[in-house]
């Protein structure tokens, strides 16, 4: 019985010390607003082969892992209608439930996420005040 217990403890320790789950990193090489061409390929690439902010979100939504999206200096302008929740156009929709998505810029003074939409607010069901 003690031997079985030791095996179980060893197995649990092995799981605890195992390498962390795969985490994807996407580095932008375009400020264009284009979707990912194929989220099944686990790579951030538009039809033109560029990695854009929207393509990276598409891929992050499809991946079963944490994702870090690195934005270089520049202005990333989102375009299109905001009337859907699948990240197709307009606003970004982060849907990879259960996984962490990090959007990291080069600095608040140099990396800008903008939009052609007409208004911005800070909305959350439990946060009644806007920023």
């Amino acid at each position, binding site marked *: 019985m003690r031997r079985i217990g030791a095996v179980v403890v060893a197995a649990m320790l092995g799981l605890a010390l195992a390498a962390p789950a795969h985490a994807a990193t996407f580095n932008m090489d375009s400020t264009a607003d284009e979707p990912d061409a194929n989220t099944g390929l686990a790579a951030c690439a538009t039809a033109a082969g560029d990695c854009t902010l929207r393509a990276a979100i598409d891929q992050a939504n499809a991946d079963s892992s944490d994702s870090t999206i690195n934005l270089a200096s520049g202005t990333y302008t989102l375009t299109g209608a*905001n009337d859907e929740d699948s990240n197709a156009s307009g606003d970004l*929709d982060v849907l*990879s439930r259960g996984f962490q998505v*990090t959007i990291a810029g080069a600095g608040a003074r140099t990396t800008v996420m903008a939009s052609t939409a007409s208004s911005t607010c800070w909305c*959350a069901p439990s946060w009644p005040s806007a*920023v």
Partner: protein
Amino acid sequence: MLVRSKLAVRGVTITGGLANDDLSDGGGIYMDGASTETALTVVDSTIRGTGPRTS
């Protein structure tokens, strides 16, 4: 920006009507309250809006 995940934003300025809310009738960052894992962290970033909303 509909958020149904854990989202961290750092080193970014968000401005000029970046995102819509879940009702698609205004801008903003909408946190989907259906998931207890939903969380938003903003570090070293600037977020500028053109008007508050509460819905």
